[in-house]
């Protein structure tokens, strides 16, 4: 497999050095692997820290900035970062108002963030945690590690970030974050597998004429392999899986997310089908975002995320945000 890299070992460091050079509004510590907004810590403001394996860009580093994250910790490709990074990030953004860890629900992420929370609290930093677990493809039962965090992470980081930017205290920011997390549902589909630099070949084989339903964002195969479907059928399957899990009783935010290698042209066509299905199922879409936001390297495919919102959450969504990956209102 060909990659635009200097060697598998250098991928993360090189990317962070490039981020540092491209974004003077961020402080990027490529050695210790922490991305922090330049004006942190902001007196009186709760610090939002997230992180996870790399390969999902712009998540998380691209969501650092006013109105969203204060810091992000990029791990190795598809590998949770280590506690040292998180502790360093917490210290960098802590102004005395405490820190919220936004954690995608994977065993590795949970274990590392928990260790970090313990260490940060030993350092006198109050830490709260929100788990994102929005992927309805995973049955949440005793027989799994629980639902994965995928596209819903964007909503949690944006809305909790807006609350923190408004000056809400830690308990309130955490409450918003949990509310958003609980209100988010996602479903993903792969037309092809990603290739990690370390492995150098696709993480699974997907023959022509087949697709994977219910995939995650780490190159793991999905819940089910099926004969190739049209965009319209895929939209029905994805929306169907989400609504079967829980039908929203109010308006939703909609994320039509590309996995990395699916052209925006196709993604918009797919998004149109998703909106059609939602309309047929009488779900009101308040805001729509179409693009590559929570990716899986060069995976071909897409995911759909719905997040039910009330007036307050909608206001937080519309609030200004200024990050490399998401920006409006300033």
């Amino acid at each position: 497999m060909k990659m635009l890299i200097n060697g598998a070992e250098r991928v993360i460091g090189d990317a962070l050095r490039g981020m540092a050079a491209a974004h003077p509004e961020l402080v990027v510590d490529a050695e210790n692997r922490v991305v922090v907004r330049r004006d942190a810590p902001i007196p009186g403001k709760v610090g939002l820290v997230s992180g996870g394996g790399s390969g999902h860009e712009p998540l998380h580093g691209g969501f650092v900035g006013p109105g969203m994250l204060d810091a992000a910790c990029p791990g190795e490709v598809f590998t949770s970062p280590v506690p040292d990074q998180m502790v360093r990030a917490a210290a960098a953004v802590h102004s005395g108002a405490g820190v919220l860890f936004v954690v995608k629900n994977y065993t590795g992420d949970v274990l590392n963030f928990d260790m970090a929370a313990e260490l940060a609290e030993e350092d006198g930093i109050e830490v709260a945690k929100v788990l994102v677990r929005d992927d309805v493809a995973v049955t949440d039962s005793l027989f799994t590690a629980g639902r994965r965090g995928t596209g819903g992470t964007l909503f949690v980081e944006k809305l909790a970030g807006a609350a923190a930017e408004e000056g809400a205290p830690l308990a309130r920011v955490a409450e918003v974050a949990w509310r958003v997390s609980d209100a988010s549902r996602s479903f993903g589909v792969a037309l092809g597998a990603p290739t990690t630099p370390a492995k150098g070949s696709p993480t699974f084989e997907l023959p022509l004429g087949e697709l994977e339903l219910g995939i995650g964002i780490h190159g793991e195969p999905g819940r089910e392999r099926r004969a190739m479907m049209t965009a319209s059928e895929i939209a029905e399957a994805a929306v169907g899986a989400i609504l079967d899990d829980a039908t929203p009783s109010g308006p939703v935010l909609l994320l039509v997310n590309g996995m990395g290698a699916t052209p925006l042209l196709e993604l918009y066509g797919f998004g149109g089908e998703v909106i059609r299905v939602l309309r047929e199922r009488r779900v009101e879409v308040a805001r729509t975002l179409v693009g590559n936001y929570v990716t899986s390297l060069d995976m071909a495919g897409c995911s759909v995320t719905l997040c039910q919102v009330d007036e307050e959450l909608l206001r937080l969504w519309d609030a200004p945000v200024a990050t490399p990956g998401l920006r409006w209102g300033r």
Partner: protein
Amino acid sequence: MAFRDAGFFRRWLTAAAGSFDAEADRLTELDSAIGDADHGSNMRRGMLAVAAALEKEPPGAPGAVLLLSGRTLVSTVGGASGPLYGTLLRRAGKALGDAERVDDAAVAEALAAGVDAVAQLAGAVAGDKTMLDALRPAVEALPDYAAARGAAARGAEATVGLRARKGRASYLGERSVGHMDPGAASSALLFDALARAAADE
């Protein structure tokens, strides 16, 4: 019953680092089938960092060797395996205290405590198709190091038939059956290196 000094533990973990370096692709391949294709590179990175740390400032006591190694794993591996293997070694290191030499019974007891700590942290039990399916039988076979190696290998082999209930592989449900758990395979490597270190004494 033999006594083990810090050198023994350093040799064990340095040998293990060599195995992980050599076997990284195989572990990643296993993780690719039912996980996210990173277990080999995770463990290679962590164990090479352990070997480097032990080389740079070799601790003088068995417990200190394990503590330093565990902390290094936590700081360099990430993923699920970093905290889990880190906890295994840190907990075992704590159990060994400051003693400059420890007997094999103490080693067995310390590693068993480490495995208990892993199980508690991970919320996993036998049969969940995780590293515990290799670690648990291995520590139960101690202090016979050769038997522990065999038990770990058989435990890893037995994960092939299991359906995963923890970690990433659990997302696959029935589709996880038929593949060896990468963490169990790496645990077998760890006990293989331990048996070799013991045999070399």
